[in-house]
């Protein structure tokens, strides 16, 4: 057989699984060895993800259908893994974010508690599995793998604040998991399949009463994903959890909220792309997303501590994506994918940078500074004796990164945050966007909210930057190691690459959305997937499919 390379599709799941299991065999004291295994696994993952990405670009024309039949069972019966362009993109994003987070943790955090590396690898396994799977129940399993690892990681480093936030996080996610199960089983009860491609195929000719049941199931299922994505009013757990997590964990958590968005994008385009249920739930995404942006923006403006500022920025990013996806417009969705990549990298870098910046400060200093700002300084301006004191290199470095992240978050030129917002806005109100009907009110609302949220991010970041770097109350320089600075620099550098290579990246996003908009491509690829050792697919047990319920 010449298609050995097909097995690469399952590698993003197997590599972290093996690494995570292997790490359990070694004692916590063998830190260097554990770190080595973990780093090797992450580097392998980047390689695998990029290889898959290149295969996915070639696509079916290049002889790569991206379907992997687990256990060599034909499509609707067995579980399939599907690596199309969207999945490949998410895999690359995960692995590119994982390496900096891991390297950052090597300075200090990985020694702050037991099994950091195992949990980290299992989290990656869950994420990659969720991006690859083509089966709803398998998606649930990978979600649980990811969540179980995240429970452990969130409480890594212990402390009453983390445990408290972790407890709320666990309860919310357990209830979310139950919603997931109810949704999945209702869908199975109404359609009789769990395979996403088969589901999309069968939904076309469904009785009206069955369709109602299916839509109810999809709605309950959607709640589970929206909890993960952080849509208002399901997101009150998020700021507390994200700001309590240790820096490298919060860094990798930046992509966790995007998993929900990925699934919503995948399922809404595949299952509810066309047919009589087309556009199901889009309005919920649209208005829920707008409410989330508003909530996040108010949170960003009101945050006193940097950790909370970053957490609310996660909400703004989620809300933007949800609202824009709710428009159901292909051009805008391509811009949203660009925004997803850019904002995930930015937030990952931001969470790690915050820890470095706050190291030089008292715990309550930032809160105190805001209070003083509000009520006026009692002891204004002592005397300026420090004229001509040069800025230490560390502060300069931190300040530059902080400024870059501020620009990225608020969407100012010249970095990729601007390009992402520009792409979305062009799709919404550009020359080609206005059709005969004109631009609807909700589009204008989103445009206004997008720009306002950028302004709010700019105001908050400027305020926080001035407070931290120019008018610092202590004036101490934080001790920052190279392995902690390098990850942040790397992530900022990746956004720089995104900026310079915006053209090719944007074209890839457009091609991805174009493929997503034609569900038949996905369905045919999965249903016609050839079993290994079989020249052509045989309709084995075709009679059994009719069994249904």
């Amino acid at each position: 057989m010449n298609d050995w390379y097909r097995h690469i599709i399952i590698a993003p799941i197997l590599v972290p699984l093996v690494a995570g299991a292997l790490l359990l065999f070694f004692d916590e004291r063998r830190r260097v060895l554990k770190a080595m295994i973990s780093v090797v696994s992450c580097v392998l993952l980047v390689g695998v993800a990029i290889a898959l990405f290149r295969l996915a670009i070639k696509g079916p024309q290049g002889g790569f259908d991206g379907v992997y039949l687990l256990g060599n069972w034909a499509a609707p019966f067995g579980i399939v893994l599907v690596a199309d362009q969207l999945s490949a993109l998410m895999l690359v994003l995960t692995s590119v974010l994982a390496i900096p987070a891991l390297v950052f943790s090597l300075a200090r955090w990985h020694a702050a508690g037991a099994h950091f590396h195992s949990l980290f690898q299992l989290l990656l396994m869950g994420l990659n599995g969720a991006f690859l799977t083509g089966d709803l129940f398998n998606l649930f399993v990978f979600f649980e793998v990811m969540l179980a690892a995240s429970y452990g990681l969130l409480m890594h480093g212990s402390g009453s604040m983390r445990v408290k936030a972790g407890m709320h996080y666990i309860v919310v996610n357990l209830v979310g998991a139950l919603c997931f199960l109810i949704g999945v089983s209702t869908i199975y009860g109404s359609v009789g399949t769990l395979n996403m491609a088969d589901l999309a195929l069968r939904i076309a000719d469904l009785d009206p009463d069955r369709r109602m049941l299916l839509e109810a199931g999809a709605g309950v299922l959607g709640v589970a994903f929206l909890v993960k994505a952080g849509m208002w009013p399901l997101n009150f757990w998020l700021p507390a959890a994200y700001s309590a997590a240790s820096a490298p964990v919060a860094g990798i958590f930046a992509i966790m909220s995007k998993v929900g968005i990925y699934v919503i994008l995948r399922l809404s385009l595949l299952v509810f792309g066309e047919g009589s249920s087309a556009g199901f739930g889009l309005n919920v995404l649209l208005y829920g997303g707008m409410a989330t942006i508003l909530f996040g923006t108010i949170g960003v403006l009101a945050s006193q501590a940097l950790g909370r500022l970053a957490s609310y920025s996660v909400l703004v990013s989620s809300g933007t994506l949800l609202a824009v996806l709710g428009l159901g417009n292909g051009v805008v969705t391509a811009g949203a994918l660009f925004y997803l990549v850019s904002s995930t990298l930015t937030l990952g870098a931001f969470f790690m940078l915050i820890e470095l910046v706050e190291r030089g400060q008292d715990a309550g200093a930032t809160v105190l500074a805001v209070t003083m700002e509000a009520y006026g300084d009692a002891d204004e301006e002592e005397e300026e004796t420090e004229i001509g004191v040069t800025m230490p290199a560390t502060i300069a470095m931190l300040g530059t990164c902080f400024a870059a992240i501020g620009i990225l978050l608020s969407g100012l030129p010249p970095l990729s945050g601007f390009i992402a917002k520009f792409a979305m806005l062009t799709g919404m109100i550009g020359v080609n966007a206005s059709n005969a009907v004109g631009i609807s009110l909700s589009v204008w609302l989103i445009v206004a909210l997008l720009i306002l949220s950028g302004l709010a991010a700019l105001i908050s970041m400027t305020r926080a930057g001035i407070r931290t770097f120019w008018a610092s109350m202590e004036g101490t320089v934080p001790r920052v190691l190279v392995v902690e600075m390098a990850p942040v620099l790397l992530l900022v550098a990746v956004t720089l690459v995104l900026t310079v290579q915006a053209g090719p990246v944007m074209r890839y996003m457009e091609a991805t959305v174009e493929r997503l908009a034609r569900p038949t491509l996905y369905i045919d690829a999965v249903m016609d997937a050839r079993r290994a050792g079989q020249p052509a697919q045989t309709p084995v047990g075709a009679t059994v499919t009719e069994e249904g319920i």
Partner: protein
Amino acid sequence: MELVLALAIGIMTSSGVWLLLRPRTYQVIIGLSLLSYAVNLFIFSVGGVKSNAAPLLENGVKTADLADPVPQALVLTAIVIGFATTALFLVVLLAARGLTGTDHVDGREQPK
């Protein structure tokens, strides 16, 4: 049989939701357990309630007479995962009790 099953699911869900909204962590965990029992039964029931039917396909057996094996497989997975996460939550609950000294979900007693 359908009525009994539906009643059982409904009663367990409503008790579970009520307990989930209580302020003590122990009540929350019992609520979660009840909810997951209800969900497990629900998954089991979506395959259609049949008695005395094996999920085995043989020659000469009509598919309509079979019990659906998929929900049975799903419910097994859901039980295992639910059990594991509940156990994990129990550990966190004990850790929170140790760190904060109270079993209130917010980590401090509500002022009377």
